């Protein structure tokens, strides 16, 4: 009696192995089949190179200062690495380019302390674009404010006009530039909201770094899409625009302070 039972068990085990192998192979095949599709899906949702940007989207950021960790500068490091900007010297010099910086705040009345990143606020009505004599400062249809390095004459009028001290002037010759991010001596530069990444369907480097550090203090998304997380948060919570009195409607918003 025992022998036939053993034979049955062996047969069942062989069947199980076949089934397991079959499922494994199928899964692998399915993975191989779906993977390019997923990649294509990703590419499909980023902007094709030849396609012009539209004002259907308005890229923006929401920075929650209550989640921004005191002493953490991961967003700054990530930005500088991504864009090929040298980290500020120690001690910092006023000629260093700084596309993003952590500002320490202390309430003058209560002494409450806060820390948050400040970069180009990508205004809807950017004063830098208004004053630029050649039109080198410009705003893309999707709200990203940029400097065209080909026609910037280095007059620095935009730096005089920016209420956020967001722009830097390149004071000396540069080396080791990132191929994605053209820069040059004698021109003005500032946060591009990592436009080269956004156009590939990725998030800006600072946002990614903040998430990676576990803080998730910077939320990036389309302000025009009512279903985006950023639009929902802004619709449901009290958020702040820096220098709201100037009515520039910046694309970067803050909460928690």
């Amino acid at each position, binding site marked *: 009696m025992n022998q036939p039972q053993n034979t049955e068990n062996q047969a069942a085990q062989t069947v199980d192995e076949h089934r397991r192998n079959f499922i494994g192979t199928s899964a692998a095949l399915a993975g191989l089949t779906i993977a390019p599709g997923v990649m294509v899906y990703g590419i499909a949702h980023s902007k094709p190179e030849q396609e012009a940007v539209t004002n259907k989207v308005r890229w923006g950021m929401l920075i929650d200062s209550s989640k921004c960790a005191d002493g953490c500068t991961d967003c700054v490091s990530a930005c500088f690495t991504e864009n090929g900007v040298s980290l500020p010297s120690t001690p910092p010099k006023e000629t260093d380019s700084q596309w993003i910086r952590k500002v320490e705040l202390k309430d003058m009345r209560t002494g409450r302390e806060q820390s948050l990143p400040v970069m180009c606020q990508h205004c809807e009505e950017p004063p830098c674009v208004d004053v630029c004599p050649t039109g080198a400062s410009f705003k893309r249809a999707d709200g990203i404010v940029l400097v065209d390095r080909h026609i*910037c004459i280095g007059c620095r009028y935009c730096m005089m006009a920016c209420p956020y001290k967001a722009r830097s002037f390149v004071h000396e010759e540069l080396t080791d530039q990132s191929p994605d991010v053209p820069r040059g001596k004698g021109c003005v530069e500032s946060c591009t909201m990592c436009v080269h990444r956004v156009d590939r369907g990725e998030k800006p480097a600072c946002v990614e770094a903040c998430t990676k550090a576990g803080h998730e203090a910077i939320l990036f998304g389309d302000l025009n899409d009512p279903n985006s997380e950023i639009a929902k948060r802004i619709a449901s919570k009290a958020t702040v625009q820096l220098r709201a009195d100037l009515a520039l409607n910046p694309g970067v918003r803050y909460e928690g302070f």
Partner: protein
Amino acid sequence: MASITFSELKDTSSRYWFLAGLIGLFAALGLGSAYYMEHHGHIVTGMNNSIVWGMPHVFAVFLIVAASGALNAASIASVFGKMVYKPLAPLSGLLAIALLAGGLTVLMLDLGRPDRLIVAMTYLNLKSVFAWNVVLYTGFFTFVAVYLWTMMDKTMGAYTKAAGMAAFIWRLVLTTGTGSIFGFLVARDPYSTSLLAPMFIIMSFAYGMALYLLVLMAIYTGSGRPLGDAILQRLGRLLGVFVAAVLYFVFVYHLTNLYFTKQHAIEKFILMDGGIYTTMFWVGQIFIGGVLPLVILLNAKLRASRTLLVAACLMVVAGGLAQMYVTIIGGQAFPLNIFPGWQQSSSFFDGAIHHYAPSLPETLLGLGGLAIALLIVTFGVKVLRFLPASLADADVDPHTKA
């Protein structure tokens, strides 16, 4: 009035060439500095990401503002019909063009990319005050050049009044544009006011007139041509009125700011504890550039002394440069208030008083602009008939008693 004869400066003495050489040396030093700055980048200047406009802009804006004012004598002659000023008009036009050329040279050579001048002239963002100024500068050169033509070519004499009127209106628009470069800066508390446009116009009257008087006296004394006291008395008194008007505008500007609580911090900085800027304001702009010259210029006896008149003009010029330093650099030294009610600090110097120490090259560039302007005048009066052979009282206005 006796007919006025205009003639070139026939002076070929070693003194003339020495002076021309000295001015030329400063112009060359300015150009050399610009090359040095262009080669190394602005790292060799005192300017930085907080004080983005420095010494070159102090000189450039001063020269551009003074250019408009240098046209005073011509405007009074042609627009307001004061015949006494008529012989003074051609030099007035020449100095206006020269000062504007000097100022623009500095402004252009300080650009991060001076090689892109053609871009600045061909890509115009029509919402930019700077772009408007490109048009205004070009227009000023054209209007004053045509005006000079109508004055110096007898066949064109009939058009002098019309050309003078056009140049007069254009210079007011030009200085409105220069003042608005700062007046339209919404983000910065010391600047965002329309008062800056008329204030710059009245400053142009004073600075331009002071430079005009200095150039006039230098040329006539140097060349040995007669220069009457009556004309100097008139111009000196007029300069006194302009200096008083400048002080009035400065008073109103600060009074308004002192009334607004939100402006108290910047006012305290400029007027009380701004260090070099406070000193520049009270000692340079107000005392040396305002009160002292006013005492000389509004007193007929003091004004009658040519030495004191020259001193007054030099003080107005020095005060004007101090005013530009306080306005342009002091205005930037005070930090932007991005978070009102919060004490701010960062590696980018948020909330801190910004540091600026002008370097030699940028100062030489600024002085080079002044030298270029003077070189144009020195050359101009030698080759063309800008100067009356005599400005003696009897020749200019026999009825005038000094």
